[in-house]
């Protein structure tokens, strides 16, 4: 494929090449504007997955009374009603603020630590050891300690999110830095690049794919930790809290409504927002 297009290009007059990047045969154009065939296939897959979940749920609701498993219709009606209340919207918003702050800090820290330990050998050995010890502890296990240290509220939850998203990012970047092409570093060194320029012009862009993967894994972790921490963290707002108190009064429609929101948001964020971000950041990888 690559060989063919290359040969074709070599035969074309220079002036015409600019517009012909995508070619007739390849479905994804670099701008990504028209819905591409792989995108459509993914959308279909998601549609099918949703349908099968709904179907299983509907079937289950036939065998259990509505106060145990309400039907999808009942839950969606409840959800629309909840979405009309300020309280529910605030609860969702608060969860997202916690997620955003925690995930943002974790990613930043992860990239910095990953790059630093990749570039500096002694620090790498130290942080590898540290990571291997700390990584095995489920982030949620820290909650009691953090609550005592920081008090009830957003801070222990954000800290748990940071811990859960930091490790995948740091490890991913660390590994990637070790695989940076030495010759790419040499090229910049020959131009007289400073250490900081080496990081900004070679290491950072070269490990960007790893940053994206680390971010995706970290985001999944962060999202799960957020809900879990809100459920056990003694807060009085947030999606996890919403599900917990609904469970305490056996309000299964609300529990399921909360779960639906979590599922829909994370699916949308992961498959759509992050995927788009990835294509944006790694434009060169997707250019055909």
């Amino acid at each position, binding site marked *: 494929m690559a060989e063919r297009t290359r040969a074709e290009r070599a035969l074309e007059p220079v*002036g015409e090449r*600019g517009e012909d990047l995508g070619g007739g045969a390849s479905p994804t154009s670099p701008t990504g504007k028209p819905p591409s065939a792989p995108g459509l296939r993914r959308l279909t897959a998601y549609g099918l997955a949703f349908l099968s979940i709904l179907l299983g749920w509907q079937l289950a609701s036939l065998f259990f009374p509505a106060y145990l498993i309400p039907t999808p219709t009942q839950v969606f009606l409840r959800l629309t009603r909840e979405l009309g209340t300020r309280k529910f919207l605030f609860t969702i918003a608060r969860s997202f603020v916690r997620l955003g702050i925690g995930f943002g800090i974790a990613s930043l820290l992860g990239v910095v630590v990953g790059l630093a330990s990749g570039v500096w050998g002694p620090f790498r050995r130290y942080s590898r050891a540290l990571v291997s010890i700390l990584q095995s502890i489920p982030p949620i296990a820290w909650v009691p300690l953090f609550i005592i240290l920081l008090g009830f509220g957003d801070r222990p939850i954000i800290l748990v999110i940071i811990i859960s998203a930091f490790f995948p990012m740091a490890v991913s970047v660390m590994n990637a830095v070790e695989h940076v*092409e030495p010759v790419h570093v040499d*090229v*910049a060194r020959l131009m*007289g690049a400073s250490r900081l320029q080496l990081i900004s012009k070679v290491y950072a862009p070269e490990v960007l794919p790893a940053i994206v993967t680390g971010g995706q894994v970290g985001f999944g972790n962060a999202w799960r930790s957020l809900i879990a921490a809100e459920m056990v963290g003694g807060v009085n707002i947030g999606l996890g809290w919403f599900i917990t108190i609904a469970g305490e009064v056996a309000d299964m429609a609300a529990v399921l409504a909360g779960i639906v929101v979590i599922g829909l948001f994370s699916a949308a964020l992961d498959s759509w927002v992050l995927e788009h971000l990835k294509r944006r950041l790694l434009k060169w990888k997707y250019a055909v």
Partner: protein
Amino acid sequence: MEIRSLVETAELGRGEEAPSLLLAGANKGKIIVQELFKDFDSLRVLDGIHLEVGEGEFLALVGPSGCGKSTLLRMLAGLMKPSGGRVLIDGEEVRGPSPSRNLVFQEHALYPWRTVSQNVALGLEIFRFPPAEIRRRVKELLALVGLEGFDDYYPHQISGGMRQRAALARVLAVDPDVLFLDEPFGALDAMTRLTLQKELLRLWDHSGKTVVLVTHDVEEALYLADRVAIMSAVPGRIREIIRVKDPRPRDRGSASLVSLKRTVLDLLGLEPKFSQTIPAI
């Protein structure tokens, strides 16, 4: 001019004595390599290299695979420390990389995440040129190497020959006065190689740049260089330096080049290990 004639006289001695003769002369050599050794653990790769390259000279370095040509070039460029001996450029010992000398690698080594023009701009960015100036110079350079219109292509979207042109443009952008080329055309097909050889000559001519080119291709060395240094198999030594007197542009089929080629191949052929790796020409 003066330097050329100096080198010329030295050449009468030929081979390994030549550099010391030069050193006795004056400090006129752009690059002076003295007693250079390189060991990788217990493996001696370079064993006492003496070499002198005049200002504005084009020197080709040929030798069997693994004899340490790339290693030598890396030490000349300051990317690697010698185990012994030293390299002087402009009379100063090389202790690290410097923008005044640059190296084009065996594989293009372009950054895959940068477009052609962004790749060419790398050195200018590192020098902190203003963006408008960078754009202007990149445009000039792309025209110079025949890559106009490919500004926004990524390296994987262009051909191997175009990648080498881009790599050359990237290095020329920072205008080094010494250029090291490590088999820059080694991975290309014969036809592209011939074209790029011609273009390299065009770029070098009147530039005043000193060039050291490593190549496997004896014909390429004879076509391009003022002098061809022939290295022995590992541990690498300079076994002979041959001057090519033909005026440029040279005719690859001329009697003198053909006979020089035979001489060089003969010299290389003395190494039994190398007999299989000589490209069939």
